[in-house]
């Protein structure tokens, strides 16, 4: 599933599954469904997206995600769209830990995702060490200092950024019943 926003055209396209759109239907003003040859809805197009949707907030709840990739984020700007929740600060939208002393810019210096590295899993910048692996090392009882010793080029700040990233990523997660 892919959410792609075209800022210049103010178009949001939600690709539910890959495929060719054979036919389309506008189901509400500016909202068009794409159908494939099997008459399945494969995508949703939303025109004037920023005026009808709060594009600065995306919550992903209870999905069995194996991959979550954010690329080419459009700079945040305040919108006038009514929202059920107050507009999020940009820092929250990017999992920044403003309450822990890890500023957004600092956080982004540590953790990155690149589709060419470890299938896009979050990794420590400049390495192939996934956040998942670092968390497992910590769970195994290693201290941040021991991880730094074990892996050259990794700092204690990198390890702490992994923890902060994980904590923020799990903010809306629930334990399955």
């Amino acid at each position, binding site marked *: 599933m892919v959410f792609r926003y075209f800022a210049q055209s103010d178009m949001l396209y939600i690709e539910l599954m890959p495929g060719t759109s054979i036919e389309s*239907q506008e189901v509400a003003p500016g909202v068009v469904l794409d159908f494939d040859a099997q008459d399945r809805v494969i995508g949703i197009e939303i025109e004037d997206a920023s005026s009808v949707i709060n594009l600065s907030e995306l919550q992903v709840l209870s999905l069995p995600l194996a991959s979550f990739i954010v690329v080419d984020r459009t700079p945040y700007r305040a919108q006038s769209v009514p929202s059920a929740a107050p507009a999020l600060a940009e820092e929250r939208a990017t999992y920044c830990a403003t309450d822990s002393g890890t500023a957004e810019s600092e956080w982004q210096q540590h953790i990155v995702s690149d589709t060419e590295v470890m299938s896009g899993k979050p990794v420590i910048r400049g390495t192939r060490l996934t956040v998942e692996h670092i968390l497992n090392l910590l769970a195994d009882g290693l201290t941040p200092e021991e991880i730094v010793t074990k892996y050259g080029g990794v700092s204690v700040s990198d390890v702490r950024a992994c923890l902060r990233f994980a904590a923020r990523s799990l903010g809306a997660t629930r334990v399955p019943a």
Partner: protein
Amino acid sequence: MKTTDYFRESVLVRRPYLKMEWIEAVLRNPVRTEVQPNGRTRYWGFIEELGKYLRVVVEADGETVHNAFPDRGFEP
């Protein structure tokens, strides 16, 4: 023909069968046009080769093609 980034990077990717000659034909001889509240204009035309009505959306400048799709909901 001018096109938006959305048309080139999303519309044509999802609908690779679209022919620019179809779009040009609709714009030359639409069976209906409507101006959207955002200034864009919709044009509809029947494409024999497709056997369907094609909706073409043009930017407010009147020449930049922004969208095009076989419109299931169009009733002439």
